[in-house]
Each structure stands twice: as structure tokens, then as C-alpha cells.
């Protein structure tokens, strides 16, 4: 697969006017990296500040600021010699500050495979497995683009990823579910993992009717979500693309809401393999914590909804008629 735009890979905040207006501390100015030299200086500073940090509590709170939400940002893939596929994910948030590699430990990445592939068979032949609760966890690493983690898949799998983190009163939970097309000849059977999701977190589930085909997510198709939490307080649902607020939705009483991503001319112009990432953000305030739950949708351009059948049939008929007439009237001998 190919990334549609580089911005989504970049960390939020950097070069973002809005951020500067809201920022109170000029430290941002100072922190804005200009060159590798600055970066190195920043490194030194943080290393010096380390003990203080260590004592200042194990959450994302840096300088008293928390990001508003955290989401999973699918990055590039790399194919292994044996055909297995490794998918890279960035952990992104919209904090005004630049997160630091030392926060890595504050993120917990869990994932599970929702489907076991039968490569021998036709796509019809997929069978859907919902394993018992039980996840693999993946270490959070740090690159120059920030925090990231990877998931490797031997065969065709639909992987469901969760990133859990907290900051002060804020509790973050990010989802993404999408297929990974591994092509390893001898894929190992997917056994269930050992890790568990922390209890008491709200969940944002795609569904409830979860179908294999809906994994190839397209614009113009309605996606129903199910938000499950123990609170009944007001929930605000907003749709974000590159942090731009696109739309707001309301959650029905039973905690479900539907979103139909509009067609995107840019996607339509580009090829069939391109996709964009739209983040569904649900925020609610619980008893003593605020919950920001995101679900990243990998949206491709619509596969079918641009098909115009009637014009096609008309064209077909017209050509058919035209050619028939030409053939019939350009005859040399009797036809019958």
C-alpha cells in the first residue's frame, strides 16, 4: 500500500499556527526543531531533566498539558522476503507539545487478529473468527517521527489494534481495524495472545454487523459504530481529518451512531489503492476522568458508487445497433 499524504505521518502540532496561538509557554518556540543541532540540544536538556521527570508521575502530563485525543495513524508497510507483511503505525496525538520518546512506556499497544485466512479459497471462503478476549501486545518504539509500533502478519489477517494511554484526568483509547495481506507461503496459525485489555474502558466498535467485505472501507458507505461505556453523560462525536474538524454526530441512546464518509475528489482522481485516514473521536466525561476514544477509518475511494448503469446500457445498445446496421447494409450477398 501507499500513503496518500505525508502530513498524516508527521506529528501534529509542528508548524501548526493554531498551536502557537493557544500556547502559553514560549518553550514551544524554543522547542520547535530547526535543525539536527537543535534536536541534539533538546536531547541533552531532556537527559538533564530526566530525574525530575521520573518523579513527576507516570502519565503524559508534560508541563501540565495533555493532548486532547490520541489516534492510531497507519504508516508504511514493508514486505518480508517470505511474503509476510509488517505494518507500521504511528501513535499520534494533538498535544501542543512534542511527545518524547520516554513517554513510550506510557502507551500500551494491544492487538488481535479477527480473521484467519484460507489462501487456497475464494474470498467467499473466508470464515470469521472472533477469538476470546486475549491480545498480543506490541512494544512502542521511538523514531524520528515520534512513537510508533509494528505488527507483522504472515497471511491475510484482519487486525484489530488498540492503543491505551492516560494523561492527568484524560483516558485515551484508540482503535483501528483493517486487513493486512501477508503472503507468506507457510503462515503460522494465529493463536490467541496472552495480554488483556484494561477493565472499565469504553469501547468504540465498528459494527455491530461486522462483515469481511466492510474491511475494505470506502467513501460513501455508511459505517455504524457502537460506543459502549458505563456512563450516560453526554457524548460528543466529531470526525477529524488531519485534525481538521469535519463533522459532528450525535450518539443515540443505545450508544450507536452511523457515519457515511463523503466522496473525496482527491481520492477519486488518484488510484484504486490510495486511502485516507479519518478519525472518529468520541469524547465523554466520566465521574472523575475524561474519556477520549478514537477509531481510525482507512477510507478508500468508493468502488461501485461511481458506476452509471443506464448510460452504460444506452451506449451498449447504441453501439450494438450501429454495428448491426453497418454489417447488415454493407452486404455483398443475400443474408438469408
Amino acid at each position, binding site marked *: 500500500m501507499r500513503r496518500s499524504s505525508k502530513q498524516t505521518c508527521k506529528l501534529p502540532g509542528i508548524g501548526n499556527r493554531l498551536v502557537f496561538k493557544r500556547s502559553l509557554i514560549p518553550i514551544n518556540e524554543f522547542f520547535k526543531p530547526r535543525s539536527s543541532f537543535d534536536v541534539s540540544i533538546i536531547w541533552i536538556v531532556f537527559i538533564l531533566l530526566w530525574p525530575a521527570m521520573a518523579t513527576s508521575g507516570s502519565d503524559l502530563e508534560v508541563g501540565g498539558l495533555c493532548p486532547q485525543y490520541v489516534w492510531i495513524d497507519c504508516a508504511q508497510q514493508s514486505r518480508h522476503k517470505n511474503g509476510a507483511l509488517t505494518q507500521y503505525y504511528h501513535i499520534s496525538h494533538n498535544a501542543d507539545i512534542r511527545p518524547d520518546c520516554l513517554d513510550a512506556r506510557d502507551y500500551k499497544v494491544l492487538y488481535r487478529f479477527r480473521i484467519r485466512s484460507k489462501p487456497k479459497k475464494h474470498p467467499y471462503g473466508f470464515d470469521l473468527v472472533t477469538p476470546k478476549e486475549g491480545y498480543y501486545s506490541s512494544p512502542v518504539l521511538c523514531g524520528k517521527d515520534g512513537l510508533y509500533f509494528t505488527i507483522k502478519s504472515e497471511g491475510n489477517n484482519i487486525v484489530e489494534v488498540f492503543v491505551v494511554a492516560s494523561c492527568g484526568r484524560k483516558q485515551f483509547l484508540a482503535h483501528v481495524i483493517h486487513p493486512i495481506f501477508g503472503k507468506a507461503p507457510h503462515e503460522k496459525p494465529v493463536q490467541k495472545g496472552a495480554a488483556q485489555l484494561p477493565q472499565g474502558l469504553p469501547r468504540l466498535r465498528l459494527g455491530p454487523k461486522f462483515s469481511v467485505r466492510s474491511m475494505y472501507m470506502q467513501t460513501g458507505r455508511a459505517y455504524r459504530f457502537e460506543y459502549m461505556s458505563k456512563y450516560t453523560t453526554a457524548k460528543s462525536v466529531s470526525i477529524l481529518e488531519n485534525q481538521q474538524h469535519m463533522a459532528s454526530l450525535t450518539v443515540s441512546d443505545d450508544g450507536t451512531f452511523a457515519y457515511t464518509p463523503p466522496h473525496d475528489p482527491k481520492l477519486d482522481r488518484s488510484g484504486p489503492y490510495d486511502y485516507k485516514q479519518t478519525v472518529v473521536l468520541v469524547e465523554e466525561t466520566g465521574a472523575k476522568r475524561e474519556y477520549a476514544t478514537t477509531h481510525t477509518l482507512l477510507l478508500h475511494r468508493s468502488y461501485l458508487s461511481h458506476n452509471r448503469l443506464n448510460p452504460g446500457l444506452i451506449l451498449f445498445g447504441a453501439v450494438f445497433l450501429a454495428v448491426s446496421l453497418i454489417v447488415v447494409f454493407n452486404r455483398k*450477398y*443475400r*443474408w*438469408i
Partner: protein
Amino acid sequence: MDKENKMSDQRRQRQLQKIGRETQAEFESTRSQLQQRKDYRPEWDYFLDLLMRLFYPDALQVAVDKPVVEHLCNQAPFELFHAMGVHPARLGSGSFNVVRVSSSRLPVLMCPYLKATMGMFELHGGSRLDRLYHVVPTTCDWVVKFPEMADTVQTTCFLELPHLREDEKGQKRWLEEIYGLVRFLEHQTGRKLKRKALKASVQTFMHAWEAVGRLIELRRRRLLSGIWFMVAINSFLLDPIEIWTEHVLKLLDAIQSDSPQPLHQGLFLAGSPIVFPNFKLLNLIEAAGMDVCADDLCTSERIWPGGVCYDNSSCHGLLKTLAERYHRACICPTFADNERRFNSIFNTLEQHRIRGVVFHVLKGCHPFDIESFGLEPKLKQKGYKFLRIETDYVEEDSRNILTRLEAFSGI
């Protein structure tokens, strides 16, 4: 003056009557000779009766009860005539006597078969058959000039025969000719060519072809003598085709029912046509202790164009099929691109283990005359015997021919 004309007319009439009698006698005697053969069987009478119609064309007219089309060569599709509700027939005969009717007014070298045909017309006052047309594929010069020399009163339709047929041009031209024939017949008969009729006619003839095919098989296996085979095929189209076919089938059953012994040494007879009652050569061949078990005469095996096969039963498709079957498949030596004619001869020789070829050249039959010299070395080099016999509608050279044939059988 008138008086003299009248005199000469009367003399002419007397002469015609005389020749007529002699010709009739010739027919009768040939017939009785055949009936006295030891391998004669009553089934043959039907065919012999048909052959007599060469002398009594009116009988044919009565039998078929259709307009009769006199065609000279085999390139005009029989099926087409049949579908158009007319009856095609070759009214030429091999009579020795009837040649005399018109030979005085004809080139000496002219093909005697056509002389005889012409004489027969004159004998019957030319137009005794009502509504008779000629269809003349332009094969050899004699045939081309035939209507002119015969100055028949009947309407004639020429078919320009392309002598090159391996290329598209020739095939297209011939197809055009066939369409021309259709138009001619439609004009003459005043009816349209119907696809169903054509299809039916093709099937009718397919049955005839199948029967002929079996006859040929029988002769190949030396179970049917050359002369009788010739009798059967010469009578082709001297009766409605369906009836003829039935009789052939009866005959086949009769012959196969009592399994006869294979006849003596078989040979391949190539060359100019042999027509009843002139079986001189066949008789001599038998006298020399051999028998014809295969031939490529256009009055014998070659009327059988093989099955007509088509996958396209539209009117055009059928016409195209017929056109090709009677043109591309025809092995008349008149064509320029004809090496495949030799192929077919070699095939027959190999498949049926025939060792000798007798090549019959009628005087003035240029196509075969020319070809015999091309064929001879090819055959000899393949180790076959070859004997070229040039003859005419005369008896006097029988002795000489017999000597050669005897020696030939000894080689």
C-alpha cells in the same frame, strides 16, 4: 431449286432414319450382350432401361415430368437444378453410329463424344424435348464451341469456368457464375430459389452420393465389375434421383447378399469419358483378363463429388458450398492448378493396391491428351504400370488395343 432442296431434305431424312435404325440396333445389341453376361442379375434391367433413354429422350421427359436441363460437364451443381424444379441430365451417348449423322460437318479432330451427342440431337430433330435448356461450363474448347456448332434452338447458359481455383479470385468468380445460373434458372422457370428447397435437395443428393459411395467401395473390393459399375453410373439422372437411389440401394443389397468372389486383376482407368453403348475399352480390358476397379472418368466415379458438407445452411452458404464442391473438388484435367488431381489418383492406387493405370484418350480430347504425358513419368517413377490408349469411336483398332492390353497385363 425448291425441288432440289426437297430432294436433299428427303435424302437427309432417309439417311437419318437409316442411322437411327442402326443406332437403335447398336443400343439393343449392347444391352442384350450385357444381359447375356454370366454376372448379370435382374436388378440390372432397371439401369439398362434407363440407358435406353439416351436413345429415347422423350421417355426421360415423361419419367421426370419436369423441364429437362441438358448439362455438358459436371461443374454445374445437380442439387441446384433439383431445387429449382428442373431435371439435369447428360444426354450424350457413346454410340458409334450416331457420330456419322453430323461428322461430315464437323472438324475431324473433334471429340467424338460431343459428335455423338450432337448427332443424337439431330436424330431427334433437336428440340423434341420441350422446355430443354443447355447449361455449359466452359471446360474444354470443344465444349465451349458445342452450342455454336450444334446451333441448337434451345436457350443456353454458359458458366465461365475459372481454370485457376486455388486463389480467391477464381473462387469468387465461380460463385458469381453460380449466382448467374440461379438467375438464369429463376428467369426460365419463373420461380424463386427457396432455401428450404435447396437444403432438401442437398440432402436428397447426399443419399444418392452415399449409395454411389457404397457402389464405389464394392468395385474397389473387386466385387463389382467395371462394366456394370459403368452401367449404374451412366444411368445416373436418367430417372428421378430418389427412385434411382432406391434401385441402387436394392442392387447393393442384392450383390452383397450373395457374396461374390473377387474378380481378376484390378486396374485404374483414367482419361476421357466412356458412355453407354460404347463399352469397347471396358470389354477389351476384360478380354485381356483385367478389370477396372477404379477410375476418374467424368461419366463414372467423378460424378460423385464426395459428400457435400456445409455448416452454414443459409441460401448463400449452401450455394457457396455447392460452388466449391463442384469447382475446387473437381479433378477434371482442364484446370491449370491441378497437381492435386494426381494426388487423388496416387491415393486411390495406394489405398487399393492397384498396380496399373490405363489412360484412355479419345481423339481430340486435348486436356487428357496433354495430361497423359505429365502423368506417365510420375506413375512409372512410383513403380506403377502405365498404358496410354488413344482411340476413337471406331471398332477397327480393337485388335491392336487388345494386344497392348494383354501385354500390359503381363508386365
